[in-house]
C-alpha cells in the first residue's frame, strides 16, 4: 500500500517535468491566459500532495478519471474495459497453449538430459532468449501469413488470423517454462531422497512423476498467477504488429501524447497487478505445497 503511494508521488513528480507544450494540441495559437487556464483545469500546477490526494480520493469513489487527449472527455474506465478484454483473450489463450507445451518440453529435456532432445530444446531456448523478440515476431508475421494464406493483420471473427499472434505470444513463454522446469527437475534428481528411492527399487516412472515432477512444479506455480495477470497489459509488439486493439502500447501512446490522467490510471493498474501477482503467487505456492508457509509459527526462528 505504501509502495503504491510512493509510486504515485514519484510518478506525479516525473510528469511535472514534462514540457507544457505537450498538453495542448494548438499551443502556438493560445494566449498566455488560455494556457494558464488550461493548466489549472488539468491540475498540473498544483503541489504534489494535492494532485496525489485528489487522485486517491477519486479512486475511492471508483473514478479513474477522464481522458484529456487520447479520447477527449471520455471516462478512462470506458476506454480501457474493451481493450482489457481483447488483451486478456489473447493472453489467456496463449497461456493455455504455452503452459502445457512448455511443461512437456521441460520434462522431455530433463528425461533426455544430455541427449539429442535436450540439445535441440536448448538450441530453441537459446535462439528465443537471445534474439530480440521484435526480430522473430516480424519474421513470423511476414512468412507465417504467406504460409497460411491469410491477412497479416488480425480481423475480428476470423479465427485463422489469431494463429500467428498467439504463436508469437506463446513462443517465448514456452521457452522460459521449458528452461525453468528442466532446471528444477535436474536439480531435484540430484537430491538424496531420489537416490534413496532408486536404491529402494522404486520404478522409474513413479520416481519421475510422483517425486521429481511434482516437486519441481512448485516454484513454477508461483509464476502462473503473475503472468496470467500480466497478460492484461498486453504485448506491445504483437498487438501493434497485428493491429489488435488491446492494452499493449497504450501506455507508450498516452505518455507520448501527455494524457496525464490516462498515465496515472494505467500506471496504478499495472503496479497493482504486479503486486497482486506476487501475492497470489505466494498463495498458490502454499496451496500446492503444504510444507511452505508464510505465516510465522512458534517453531521458526
Amino acid at each position: 500500500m505504501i509502495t503504491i503511494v510512493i509510486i504515485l508521488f514519484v510518478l506525479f513528480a516525473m510528469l511535472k517535468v514534462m514540457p507544457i507544450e505537450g498538453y495542448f494540441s494548438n499551443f502556438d495559437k493560445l494566449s498566455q491566459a488560455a494556457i494558464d487556464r488550461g493548466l489549472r483545469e488539468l491540475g498540473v500546477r498544483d503541489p504534489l500532495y494535492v494532485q496525489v490526494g485528489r487522485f486517491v480520493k477519486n479512486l475511492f469513489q471508483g473514478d479513474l478519471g477522464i481522458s484529456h487527449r487520447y479520447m477527449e472527455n471520455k471516462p478512462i474506465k470506458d476506454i480501457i474495459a474493451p481493450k482489457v478484454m481483447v488483451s486478456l483473450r489473447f493472453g489467456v489463450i496463449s497461456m493455455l497453449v504455452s503452459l502445457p507445451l512448455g511443461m512437456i518440453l521441460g520434462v522431455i529435456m530433463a528425461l533426455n538430459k544430455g541427449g539429442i532432445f535436450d540439445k535441440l530444446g536448448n538450441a530453441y531456448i537459446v535462439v528465443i532468449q537471445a534474439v530480440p523478440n521484435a526480430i522473430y515476431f516480424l519474421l513470423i508475421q511476414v512468412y507465417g501469413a504467406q504460409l497460411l494464406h491469410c491477412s497479416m493483420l488480425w480481423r475480428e471473427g476470423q479465427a485463422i488470423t489469431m494463429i500467428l499472434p498467439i504463436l508469437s505470444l506463446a513462443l517465448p513463454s514456452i521457452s522460459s517454462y521449458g528452461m525453468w522446469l528442466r532446471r528444477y527437475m535436474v536439480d531435484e534428481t540430484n537430491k538424496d531422497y531420489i537416490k534413496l528411492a532408486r536404491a529402494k527399487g522404486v520404478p522409474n516412472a513413479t520416481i519421475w512423476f510422483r517425486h521429481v515432477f511434482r516437486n519441481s512444479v512448485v516454484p513454477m506455480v508461483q509464476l502462473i498467477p503473475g503472468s496470467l495477470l500480466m497478460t492484461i497489459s498486453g504485448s506491445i509488439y504483437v498487438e501493434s504488429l497485428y493491429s489488435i486493439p488491446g492494452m499493449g502500447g497504450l501506455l507508450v501512446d498516452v505518455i507520448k501524447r501527455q494524457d496525464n490522467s490516462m498515465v496515472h490510471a494505467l500506471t496504478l493498474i499495472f503496479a497493482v497487478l504486479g503486486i497482486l501477482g506476487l501475492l497470489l503467487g505466494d498463495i498458490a505456492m502454499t496451496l500446492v505445497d503444504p510444507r511452505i508457509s508464510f505465516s510465522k509459527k512458534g517453531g521458526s526462528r
Partner: protein
Amino acid sequence: MAHTVQDAMAKKLEEGINGSASAQFSDKDDLTPEEIAALPPDDFVLVPYNEEEAERGGYSNYSYWGSTIRMFFKNKVAVAMLAIMGTMLLFTVIQPYLPNQYDPYTCNLITKEMIDEGLVPEKSIVGMPIKNLKPNRVFWFGTNANGQDLWAQIWQGSRNSLIIGFATALIEAVVGIAAGLLWGYVRWLDPIFTEIYNVLNNIPSTIILILVSYVLSPSMGSVIIALSITGWIGMARFIRTQVLIIRDRDYNLASRCLGTPTGRVVVKNLLPQMVSVIMLRMALAIPGGIGSEAFLAYIGLGLPLQTPSLGNLANNGRKLMSTPALRYQLLIPSAFLAVITICFYLVGNAFADAADPRNHV
C-alpha cells in the same frame, strides 16, 4: 610449608627443561667453518618441478584463471562462437579503413557507368539517388530508400549497437554491483533499497525513457543513459540475492569476529565468490542492451533516424516488408542482430560455467 614444596617442584621442572634443551642443541647450534665446507653441495641445487613430489608436499599449481580458460576451451560450440564474435568485433573496427568501402552516410547517386554496366535499370536518370537497389556485386547488401550503401550502414550500425551494449553493460555492472553489495550486506539499508526496487520496478520504464529523451537530445549518450537508469536495479537485486546467500557463511562470520573491516570482507570474501555469476550477467547484459535498443527504435524513442544502429535498420526494414522484393532490408539487419546476440549469449553462458570453481577438476 606448602610454599617451599611448590618452589622446589618448580625449580626441579625448570632444571629438567633446561637440561633437555641444552642436551638437544648444544652440539648442533653453530657449525664450524670446517663442517660447513664438508656439507655436500648437491643439497643446495634448485630441483626441477616434480608433480609427484609436489603432491606429497601438499603444493598445488592450481590457478583460478588458468582453469577457467582451460574449461572454456573444452566447450567447442562456445569457442566457435567466440571466433565468430571476435571476427565480427575486429571487422566492425577495421571495416571503414578497408579499400573500396562506401561511406554509410552519403546518398549514392546514379552514374553513367552504372547504367552501362547494367547495375541499375536502363531507364534510370543519371544523378538521382540509387533507391532500394537489390544486393549486387557493387553494393553487397544493396541500398536503402535514401541510396545509402546498406553494407556500410550495417557495419556502422553494428558498431553503434555494440557500443551501446558494452556501455550499458559496464554502467549496469559498476552501479548494480556497488548498490547490490550495500543492499545485501548492510542490514539497515535493506528496507530502503527494497522500497526503491518496488517503486522503480513499477514505474513504467517508458516514462523514464521519454523523460530522458526530453531532457537530453536523442543521441547515443542519451540511449545509453536511459537504458542504464532502467537497468541497474535488476543487477543490484541479483547481486543482493547472491550476497544474502553467502553473507552469513561460517568463514565470513570468522572473518568478522577476527575484526576484518567490512570493506575488506566485501571485496576479498564476497566478490571473488560471485565472479562467475557477475560475468554471466554482464555477458547477457550486452545482448540485452542491443535488444533494448531495438525495442526503443521500435517504439520510436531510439537513436535519431540518421544514426544507423541494428535496431534502427531493422525498424526501417520493417516499414518496407509488405513489398517482398525489399525484404532484404529487414532480413539482413535481423540476421546480424540474431548472430551477434546469440554469440554473446552462448559465450557468456559458457564462460560463466567455466568460471564457476565447482566445475574445475
